[in-house]
């Protein structure tokens, strides 16, 4: 018998703390498999965020550095500039990257830092208890928008991929989703390509992964996947936003 699928050795045996059905686990696996397939385990450094993925350093069999909230691109910049031959990536949620860390990610892309950002967008603040994020959809109910996000009061959700694609220093930007098998495989290819872009020293790369937060959305994991398909993908169109 041959193995068709087995857990990559780049993930540790640590039990993930994520809620049932949380897609962080899928993204962790895709990142780990991409690093494994590129054969860069020994020279890869991950920078993990504040948010639900704050313990991500326990799950990857690579060197990782914890960053202050939103500052992962700044920390990654330092690591990459001191060790230009290392592969350096940040792993950030939408509360981290699109809110408190907006300045850091925009300026990292602006400087054309040769780092890769893995941006997990689940349209809500997860760890802190389901508050409205800049990416929360109009009408979406959260603990701080109990009647749904009001466009007049809070503005419209921010599309980070499209915004960063307009910046000269960015080299590869793609948005993917995890709602079905085909899209999960596309997400894996996108993450691998982002790392290849960095290794080729072309510039800044980011993969935005549309993800679910069943607990804070108040849905079952399966309902959350359907909600992502019906609501998030129409507002956040999938595909390559920039490639140089």
């Amino acid at each position, binding site marked *: *018998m*041959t*193995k*068709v*699928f*087995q*857990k990559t050795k780049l*993930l540790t045996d640590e*039990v*993930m703390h*994520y*809620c*049932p*059905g*949380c*897609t*962080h*686990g*899928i993204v962790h*696996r895709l990142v780990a498999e991409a690093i494994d397939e590129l054969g860069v385990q020994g020279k890869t450094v991950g920078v993990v965020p504040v948010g639900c993925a704050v313990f991500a350093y326990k799950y990857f069999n690579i060197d990782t550095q914890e960053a202050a909230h939103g500052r992962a691109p700044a920390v990654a910049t330092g690591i990459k500039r001191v060790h230009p031959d290392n592969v350096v990536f940040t792993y950030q949620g939408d509360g981290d990257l699109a809110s408190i860390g907006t300045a850091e990610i925009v300026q990292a892309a602006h400087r054309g830092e040769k780092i890769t950002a893995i941006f997990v967008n689940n349209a809500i603040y997860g760890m802190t208890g389901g508050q409205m994020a800049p990416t929360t959809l109009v009408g979406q109910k959260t603990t701080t928008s109990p009647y749904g996000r009001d466009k007049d009061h809070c503005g419209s959700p921010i599309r980070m991929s499209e915004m960063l694609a307009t910046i000269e220093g960015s080299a590869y930007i793609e948005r993917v989703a*995890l709602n*079905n*098998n085909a899209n*999960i*495989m596309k997400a894996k290819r996108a993450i691998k390509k982002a790392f290849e872009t960095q290794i080729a020293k072309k510039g800044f790369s980011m993969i935005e992964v549309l993800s679910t937060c*069943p607990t804070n959305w108040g849905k*079952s*994991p*399966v309902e959350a*996947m359907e909600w992502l398909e019906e609501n998030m993908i129409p507002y956040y169109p999938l595909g390559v936003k920039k490639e140089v």
Partner: protein
Amino acid sequence: MAKVTINEELCKGCELCIRACPKKILVLSDTKLNSKGYHPCEITDMSACIACAACARTCPDVVIEIEK
């Protein structure tokens, strides 16, 4: 003939594998409970499995291993 190994102890019963399975042969166990208190997923008809690994790819906790 495919062989699916599920690490039942780490399964959180999220049912995403059940949604992903094209053959609809995955269910949550009626009889088993793991130490976290979840009913783990199990296969009802191994002979119908086509080893597509859709369940394994969607599993957030990477508890499924597939051989063919």
